[in-house]
C-alpha cells in the first residue's frame, strides 16, 4: 500500500502529443525500465514463468516482458503490482500488439484461499486495453479468504477502457485505482470497508475496472479527478480544483464462509475492525467511515491540494503551497504531531511552513516527507 506514488514521465497532454506522432518511430531504448525485487510468493514481481520457483528476488531485476513497453507509472500493492504503459511508444516496438490482448479475469478482487498455493502469473497481464492510449498491467493477483474460480482464459476488456487513458495508478492492500486523462477514476478490487467508494449497493468484489464518479457537494456534477490513492481499507482522491475526497474505513461487510479458517488474516482483521478506529478519513470523530467519496472540509476547505497518500490507517495531503496535513493513526509518532495520538481531522505540520513539502509517504511506524524538489 505503498502509496502509489507514481510520477508519470509524460503528462497526459504529452501523451496525447505522442499519440499524434506515432508515425515517428521511437526507440524502445527510450522506454522506462521497471525493476522489481523482494517477495515473489504471489508473483507480484512479475518476472515470469521461468522464475516460478523463486520465492523472492534478492536484487532489483528488470521485468523483461515490459521491456518493449513505455512505462509511465508503477505501483506496488500488498501482494500485487501495477504499471501503466503507453501504447503510443510501444507501437514502435514490433513485438507489442496491444490491440488484440485481453484482460485477465483475476485482477484485484480475486480471492484465493489462504494456505493454498496461489496461482503463478507468468507475466504481466493487461487489466485494460486501450487503442492508442495506455494500458494497465497487473503483475500479480492478491489473495484473500474467499475462493473464487480462477478464470483460465483472459476475458475481454470492458468498453470503459476504450475511451480512457490511464495516467496514474495506485495499488492498495487488495484494491486498485487509476486516474485517467479525462479526469475520471476507475477502481476495482475488494468491496468491503467501503474502500471502493461505490456505495453500499456494491455487495461483492469488483473484478473489473468500474468508474468511480464523485459528485460535487455543491452542484451535484461529477468532479474531475486529478489523482487517487488506495490505502489499506480507505482511499482518497484529489480533484483538479484541489478538493480532497476520502472514503472507506467501514467495517468489513463480507461474511467469511467455511472456506475461511480461523487462521485467515482477513477474518482476524474483520474481528478487530472497528469503525473510526484511526480517523484516517479526516472527517472528524462523527464521520468515521463513508461508503462513498466525501469532501474533506474543515481546515482543508478552500485549499488547493496537490496529492494525497493513503496508507495503513493514515492519510497525508500535500498542498500546492507545500504544506503537509496528516491525519489518522499516530502510531509511533508518524503523524508528526509530536505524540502518538490519533487525529481524526487534518493536522497541519505547522513548523514545516518554511519547508515546501513535495511528497509524503507513510509506513506502519514512520512517515517520510520529501522537500526541496
Amino acid at each position, binding site marked *: 500500500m505503498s502509496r502509489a506514488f507514481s510520477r508519470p514521465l509524460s503528462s497526459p497532454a504529452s501523451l496525447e502529443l505522442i499519440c499524434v506522432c506515432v508515425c515517428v518511430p521511437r526507440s524502445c531504448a527510450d522506454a*522506462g525500465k521497471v525493476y522489481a525485487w523482494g517477495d515473489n510468493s504471489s508473483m507480484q514481481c512479475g518476472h515470469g514463468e521461468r522464475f516460478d520457483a523463486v520465492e523472492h528476488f534478492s536484487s532489483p531485476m528488470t521485468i523483461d516482458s515490459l521491456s518493449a513497453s513505455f512505462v509511465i507509472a508503477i505501483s506496488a500493492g500488498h501482494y500485487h503490482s501495477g504499471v501503466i504503459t503507453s501504447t503510443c511508444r510501444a507501437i514502435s516496438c514490433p513485438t507489442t500488439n496491444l490491440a488484440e490482448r485481453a484482460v485477465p479475469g483475476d485482477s484485484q478482487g480475486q480471492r484465493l484461499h489462504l494456505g493454498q498455493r496461489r496461482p503463478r502469473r507468468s507475466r504481466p497481464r493487461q487489466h485494460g486495453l486501450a487503442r492508442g492510449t495506455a494500458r494497465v498491467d497487473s503483475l500479480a493477483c492478491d489473495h484473500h479468504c474467499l475462493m473464487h474460480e480462477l478464470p483460465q482464459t483472459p476475458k475481454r476488456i470492458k468498453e470503459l477502457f476504450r475511451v480512457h487513458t490511464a495516467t496514474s495508478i495506485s495499488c492498495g492492500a487488495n484494491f486498485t485505482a487509476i486516474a485517467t486523462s479525462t479526469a475520471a477514476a476507475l477502481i476495482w478490487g475488494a468491496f468491503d470497508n467501503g474502500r471502493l467508494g461505490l456505495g453500499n449497493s456494491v455487495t461483492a468484489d469488483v473484478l473489473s475496472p468500474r468508474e468511480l464518479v464523485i459528485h460535487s457537494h455543491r452542484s451535484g456534477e461529477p468532479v474531475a479527478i486529478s489523482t487517487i490513492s488506495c490505502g489499506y481499507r480507505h482511499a482518497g482522491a484529489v480533484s483538479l480544483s484541489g478538493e480532497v475526497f476520502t472514503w472507506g474505513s467501514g467495517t468489513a461487510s463480507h461474511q467469511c464462509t467455511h472456506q475461511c479458517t480461523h487462521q485467515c488474516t482477513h477474518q482476524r482483521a474483520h474481528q478487530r475492525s472497528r469503525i473510526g478506529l484511526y480517523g484516517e478519513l479526516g472527517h472528524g470523530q462523527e464521520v468515521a467511515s463513508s461508503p462513498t467519496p466525501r469532501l474533506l472540509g474543515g481546515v482543508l476547505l478552500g485549499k488547493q491540494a496537490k496529492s494525497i497518500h493513503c496508507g495503513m490507517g493514515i492519510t497525508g495531503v500535500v498542498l500546492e503551497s507545500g504544506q503537509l496535513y496528516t491525519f489518522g493513526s499516530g502510531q509511533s509518532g508518524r503523524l508528526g504531531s509530536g505524540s502518538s495520538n490519533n487525529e481524526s481531522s487534518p493536522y497541519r505540520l505547522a513548523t514545516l511552513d518554511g519547508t515546501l513539502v513535495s511528497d509524503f509517504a507513510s509506513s506502519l511506524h514512520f512517515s517520510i516527507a*520529501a522537500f526541496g524538489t
Partner: protein
Amino acid sequence: MSQLLSRVLSTIGSTGDLGAAAQQAAAPVVVAGVIVCGSLPGAGAGGGGSSEDANGVLAPPRIDATFAGAAVAAIAASSSHSLVASSSASGGNVLGIGNNANSQLGDDLPMPLVTSWSPLPMLFGFKIVSISCGLTHSLCLDGR
C-alpha cells in the same frame, strides 16, 4: 508545532543548515531532503539513530548528507520498509530502510532488518523517476 518537528528543524540546522537553505526560495543550489517522523522498531527514529524523548516519540532524522546536491525524485513506504530515490546530474541513488526479510531492500543490505538509511548498490547511478513499496516487495521505474 510539536516538539518533534522542532527537533527536526533543529537537527537540520545543526547538520548543514539544510532547513534554513530550504526556506530560501531563491537559493541557487538544489536543496532537497527527507524528513522522517516516527520510529522503526529496533532501528531508532526512522533508522536515523535519534533518541527517544520522554513521551516515547522518536525524533525524526534526515538523510541530507546523501542527498547533497541532489533532488528527491521519489519516495515510497509500505508497512515495514521505505525507499527514497534521489537524482542528480551525475546519476541517482536509492536508499532503503526497514524490513528486509524478503529482500525487499536487496540482499546487499543486512537481513532481516536495515536499521539506517542505506543505499541499494544495484540501483546506484540509475535515474529513478518513480518508486513504490508493496507489503514485501518493491518496484522502481528507471527513466534513463
